[in-house]
């Protein structure tokens, strides 16, 4: 009897371990393909969902970027439960430049360098608790980032 119980426990444990595997795969960050392929801001938001303006997101970009091929962008979010950060450059051929998944234990902070085709607003979109928030900043570009 006791042995059966042990056997059952073992089996149950193995089953539980197995059932966790697909969960882990699901938790992995899926590429927002549709949003990445969108060719305008409207298309990106149509795919991601609508975002409301927030002053809890800090977006740092240069006022004037001499070289549009290398524009440093820093985003940090004070919104509790920030789980994703998206970077959008409005006038780029595909506005969505980068998406970050921020697991618990990592600060809601990322810094990257992006290409900016021409003077236009750069957006930071933050997902927290299933909701989207955004902020934007205009960056003037003297030399576009697409021709090279």
């Amino acid at each position, binding site marked *: 009897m006791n042995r059966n119980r042990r056997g059952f426990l073992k089996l149950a444990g193995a089953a539980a371990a197995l059932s966790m595997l697909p969960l882990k795969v699901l938790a*992995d*960050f899926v*590429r*927002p393909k549709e949003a*990445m392929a969108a060719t305008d801001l409207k298309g990106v938001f149509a795919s991601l969902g609508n975002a409301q303006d927030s002053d809890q997101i800090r977006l740092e970009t240069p006022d004037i970027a001499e070289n549009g*091929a*290398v*524009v*440093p962008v820093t985003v940090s979010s004070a919104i509790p439960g920030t789980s994703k950060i998206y970077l959008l*450059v409005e006038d*780029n*051929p*595909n506005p*969505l*430049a*980068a*998406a*970050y*998944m*921020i*697991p618990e*234990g*990592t*600060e809601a*902070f*990322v*810094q*990257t*360098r*992006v*290409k900016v085709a021409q003077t236009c607003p750069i957006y930071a979109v933050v997902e927290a608790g299933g909701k989207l928030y955004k902020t934007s900043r205009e960056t003037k570009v003297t030399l576009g*980032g*697409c*021709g*090279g």
Partner: protein
Amino acid sequence: MAGSIRIRARLSGDVAEVKALMRHPMETGRRKDSAGNTIPAHFITEVTATSAGKTVLQAQWGAAVSQNPFLSFRIKGAKAGDTVQVQWLDNKGETGVGEATIK
């Protein structure tokens, strides 16, 4: 392209600031060479960072990330001596990896 990422991880308090510099052309597929031929797209699509056995950041990139991409992020509750590993995958299936110890 192993070893194509330079990583520095510096601890201040219990937060480690990680800075990674990857070597990659990040071609958009929209540029033309001097002969007028389109240069095919070649860019990093995914970046994953792990530390102390857990994923600390995942990124999905488009071609608009600059050449030789730079990425910085901050891990909370980090300890000196922990390692940080960063891996990338590009649209041609090539990969790169780099590792650093938090100091």
